[in-house]
């Protein structure tokens, strides 16, 4: 089961430092949300799609296609109904609220596609190391990357548990909502209990490998910020600054919009 989004390909985006990519993603997302008008997030979305192409992840984007569509539609409908403006279109929907809905749909699409490109081009261990370099304490980064490594194991165990209980006649399809909820108990208890039971084994293995033995530990995986990374960092910072300017300058607003 391929749970991770990472695609191994030699692309310029893959070669970038995870910290630079993270900052760039932050910049793109902040810039996208700093405007009410859909034009700005549309440009950011196009930028992210171009990055996907450059990363060789274009075809893989279809993995998130459903999510993109569902989220975008959902927010489009939500804001069209919840926001308001002077130009009536249809029922409660006004031109302003529709525009705003389109804008947020694009912002969410940028989030999904942007995070996809980031994750498709960055290995799990690079993410963890990047976070440590940014100041996250080692033990926290360790818990995070151990959790990352354990998810596929638990997903596999969960799938086995579902099959085992189904083989005993568990049927989660039938019954009203409360009954169906109760039927999840034979699924939750085994997965949770067997996860918890492995606490001691994992802890023993950790101690046996000298976890916490020295105050200073070596980091085998090293990250380097090259010229391309610094350019990305600068661009990211510029975007962040621009997003604040945009938000507080009044540009990018939809006149008459009430949210």
């Amino acid at each position: 089961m391929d749970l991770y989004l990472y695609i191994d390909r030699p692309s310029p985006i893959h070669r970038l430092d995870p910290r630079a990519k993270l900052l760039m993603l932050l910049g793109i997302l902040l810039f996208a949300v700093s405007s009410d008008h859909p034009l700005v997030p549309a440009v950011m979305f196009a930028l992210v799609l171009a990055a996907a192409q450059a990363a060789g992840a274009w075809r893989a984007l279809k993995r998130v296609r459903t999510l993109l569509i569902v989220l975008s539609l959902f927010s489009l409908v939500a804001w069209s109904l919840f926001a308001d403006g002077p130009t009536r279109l249809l029922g409660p929907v006004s031109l302003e609220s529709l525009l705003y809905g389109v804008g947020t749909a694009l912002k969410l699409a940028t989030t999904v596609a942007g995070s996809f490109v980031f994750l498709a081009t960055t290995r799990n261990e690079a993410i963890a190391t990047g976070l440590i370099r940014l100041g996250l304490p080692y033990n926290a980064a360790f818990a995070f990357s151990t959790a990352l490594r354990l998810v596929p194991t638990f997903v596999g165990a969960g799938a086995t548990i579902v099959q085992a209980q189904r083989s005993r006649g568990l049927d989660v399809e039938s019954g009203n909502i409360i009954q169906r909820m109760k039927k999840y108990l034979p699924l939750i208890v085994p997965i949770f209990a067997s996860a918890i039971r492995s606490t001691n084994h994992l802890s023993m293995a950790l101690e046996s490998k000298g976890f916490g033995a020295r105050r200073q530990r070596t980091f085998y995986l090293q990250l380097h910020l090259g010229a391309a990374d610094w350019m990305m960092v600068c661009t990211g910072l510029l975007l962040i600054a621009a997003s604040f300017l945009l938000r507080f300058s009044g540009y990018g607003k939809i006149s008459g919009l009430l949210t």
Partner: protein
Amino acid sequence: MASVSEAVQLTNVHFTYRNGETPALAGIDLAVSPAEFVVILGPSGAGKSTLCYTLNGLVPKFMRGNLEGQVTIFGSPTAGERVSTLAERVGLVFQDFESQLFSTNVELEVAFAPENFGVDRAEIGRRVAECLATVGLTGLERREPATLSGGQKQRLAIASVLSLQPRMIVMDEPTTDLDPLGKEGVFQVSRRLRDQGLTMVIAEHETEEAAVADRVVVLHQGRVLAEGTPADVLTRADWLEALGVQPLGAAQLTARLGLPPALTVADAAEQLAAAGYRVDLTALPTPAPEPNAPAIVEVVGLEHRYPNGLTALQGADLTIRQGEFVAVVGQNGSGKTTLVKHFNGLLMPTAGEVRVAGRPTAGQTVLELGRTVGYVFQNPDHQIFAETVADEVAFGPRNHGVAPDEVQERVAEALAAVGLTGREADDPFTLTKGERQRVAVASILATRPQVIVLDEPTTGLDYREQRQMMDLVRRLNEAGHTIICVTHTMWVVAEYACRTIVVKDGRIWMDGPTRAVMVREAELTQASLKPPQLVRISNRLGGTLLTLGECLHALRRV
């Protein structure tokens, strides 16, 4: 007196766990010399794990309890030493490989331990390359551990403790959860490490591996009952069996026949041949002719292709009749589990057809098929959830809509069948692994299926528990259930299954009476399977015998 030259010196060691009633170690005296290869045998509960944990300080630093006696590793007493300090001298590998791996890639996993000690990067790089080469995982540096096989994961776990360059490696039942290929991989690594001069202390159930050790130690109820060379200890086959340790077929047979002891198939066959023994199959009781029972499971042209494109089954045909006891064997990934999951509807054919009791499975639900075919999964902890044993066993019949008083009756019946009468009110989480496994079987029995599929029913059990489990399965077969047992434990296949189906690369490779399959050793080797010692010995003496009983009956001096 602790000798400075010893790797391990345990003197009168006692240990009782904090909440334990009896001591786990009750007076252990043990010495291991540097570069020695020691195998520790013993039934479940003998104290093997506790002994292993004592060697790297987990007892008493991590496992709370009362430790008495002297433990000295490479000349220094361990009292007061931290586990991390000992980690540089002693590497410990545990049974469950999933609970030993933390990183998201192979390379980093091996680097983890030296990183913790502040070893410099260039040195770590060197060690990673070296350790991966030793365990045979070179080239897999950037892989995620989730994509490795069980055997590869365990070898990665070994590499991850090797990178601290310890002088001794201790392994606590490292191969219990592995298939034969995985086990072989780990054994090869152990031998390679021994050749490199590391001291090896391995607690194992696989007695064949003990045959190549320098010394064998037998543990029982926290005491050392015997120690010596394999020739000294393993030849006491009947005694080992009485203790609950699986005896070596070669040793047991030669001892029973009064011949000089042998530990290997080659030696035993030679001995017996020299003494004039040949197999006389006519001496075996002829099985009563099978009335042609109706087919209960029929598989025609079965193919199964997973959504991700992997074709697990490429065309299988077979018919299983009511009352049969069939073993389905093969490596992990051969398709054997995929095959049997079609019998109760967990999987549907992507081509071909599967019929159960005459009706195609397509269109039936798991709930419906579950009334005819019960499936007992390998790990009981993947299904136990209830407060009491009775509730656990009642789950199946309740799901099938059985009336409450009948449910109670079925629960009592099922518990009686598995030997757990009187345990109805117990908390299933407090039972031993073997008992939990029996609860799992009981919970399927309570649904009164005609066919029972068992997935690796002997995993994680010691020899005595394995026999108990398989004797139970045999009783169920004698009571009329059709048994389909997926396993790679060949002695179980030889002793219990009338018919053996070998699955390899998604196809049915061999299918026939067990005796007929077990004689085809070369083909079995291609499927990475090896018949048990007794079978192989008899194969070399002119016929195929499946159990010790058969050997004693049918080996005649010519």
